[in-house]
């Protein structure tokens, strides 16, 4: 299809996914380009999270799940036997819907990943922590309280901390599952600004239930419906001139 002209960060070929006997994804083929923001939209339960979690093999943690088809990260099938999950998850970071800071200090939260990947030097860790917190636009707010427990931060700060924590391992890809769904409008705006900043250097895939958010932050949009990929294309086209009527019905709010 593509002769190496485009660089796809992530790719799925005819992927089917099962929770036990329940099929959650049907034949999804999709190519996600590098250093762009790709939004996954669709009604609740249509398989957005399941699809997102394929790329760092988070679904593996759920017993009885099965993947059929190819899931490629940098042209490597990550469901092959010899894949190093530690390495994969270093390349592909994730931010969850509900912020999940560890009950540790702010510093230790951000330092967790680098330490897990074997960085021991205190100076280097401190440098990474500061850099990551700055990238996540949180440094100014927490620089004097790095030893404070992360669970004491506000919801929006916790989510930016989780972004900083993900960035600290220097991933290329950032998977975000409704990162702002539990936040107030101001905190949401901060996260969105952050995503715009980060896309210079990262491939971002974001699940969102807010179409305004998808329109604001993404370059490409994929519309999922009942486990199927209905339409995928440039965000401007999906929102102004969708080719599928179900996409149109969804974005005009006829259902969802």
């Amino acid at each position, binding site marked *: 299809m593509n002769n190496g002209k485009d660089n796809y960060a992530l790719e799925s070929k005819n992927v089917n996914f099962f929770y036990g006997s329940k099929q959650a994804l049907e034949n999804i083929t999709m190519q996600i380009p590098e250093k762009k923001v790709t939004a996954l939209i669709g009604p609740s339960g249509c398989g957005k999270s399941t699809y997102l979690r394929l790329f*760092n093999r*988070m679904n593996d*943690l759920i*017993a009885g799940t099965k993947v059929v088809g190819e899931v490629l990260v940098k042209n490597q099938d990550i469901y092959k036997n010899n894949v190093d*999950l*530690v*390495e*994969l*998850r*270093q390349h592909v*970071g*994730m931010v*969850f819907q*509900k912020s*999940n*800071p*560890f*009950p*540790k200090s702010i510093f230790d939260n951000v330092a*967790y*990943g680098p330490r*897990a*990947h074997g960085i021991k030097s205190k100076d280097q860790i401190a440098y990474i922590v500061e850099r990551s917190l700055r990238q996540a636009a949180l440094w100014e707010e927490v620089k004097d309280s790095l030893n404070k427990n992360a*669970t004491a931060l506000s919801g929006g700060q916790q989510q930016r901390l*989780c972004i900083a*924590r*993900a960035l600290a*391992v220097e991933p290329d890809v950032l998977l975000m599952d409704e990162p702002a769904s539990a936040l107030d409008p101001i905190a949401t705006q901060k996260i969105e600004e952050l995503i715009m900043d980060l896309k210079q250097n990262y491939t971002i895939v974001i699940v969102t239930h807010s179409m305004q958010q998808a329109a604001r932050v993404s370059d490409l949009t994929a519309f999922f419906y009942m486990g199927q990929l209905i339409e995928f294309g440039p965000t401007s086209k999906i929102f102004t001139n969708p080719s599928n009527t179900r996409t149109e019905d969804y974005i005009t709010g006829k259902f969802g």
Partner: protein
Amino acid sequence: MRNFQFYKEKFIEFLLFGCAFLSVIATIGIALTLIVEAIAFFKIVSLKEFFTSSEWTPMFSEAKYGIAPLIAGTFLTTIIALLVAIPFGTIIAVFLSEYANKKFREAIKPVLEVLTAIPTVVFGYFALLFITPKLQVLLPDLPGFNVLSAGLVMGVMIIPYVSSLSEDAMQSVPNSLREGAYALGATKLRTAFTVIFPAALSGITSSYILAISRAVGETMIVAIAAGMQPNLTLNPTEPAQTITAYIVQVSMGDLPHGTIGYQTIFVAGLVLFIFTFLFNILGVYLRRRFREVY
């Protein structure tokens, strides 16, 4: 009708309060009995002798009343038991909670819990007749009654208390924390020990405190396998007696009410009561100290 409901509620409230009150009364009653008899005891034996004498021989004609040997025996058996129960219990808990799949976990838990259903007398004779001879192969000078064997077996007996409570505590750590660590590329082992274990520390600490209380209060195993000689030593290869073992030994004899021998039971009981009480307070404190909000 409304009135009936109202009185019914009141009655139930009263009943529940009564039950709670009863247990408080029982505790106070026990403490008072112990204290009254102890006061009578200390009219005859000085506090100085009680705390500084290195011998406990109330049944001898030349009686000595130093509590130290019994405390040493209790301390020693408890330490040995904990050295077995805490590491094994914790590792089993980590394994069951973080590694084993659900099926295996559900299968293995009842097996572990059967250990707690075995009467401690059985453990006592197991220590005396099975473990001690085995240990004597390694340590030829080991006497037939010794603290080591009793402590080890007691430790095995306590493992399920530690593993079951610790596992519950780790299971109740939200899965989102586990996913957070895995998503950063942490291995299972690292996640278990640097995220799940600390997050569950409050519950894990409770399990350790329970283990300590269980070890301090254990009677039959030490009475049977450790010998009945009060012995001021910290050498586990010697025989010794614990506070509880002393109490059964003396209670089985026929002691006239009001004699000093009779009162020693209550004094020993009081010491034990104070120890367990302190551990419970420590437990409550640690639980608060390590409570995590997720």
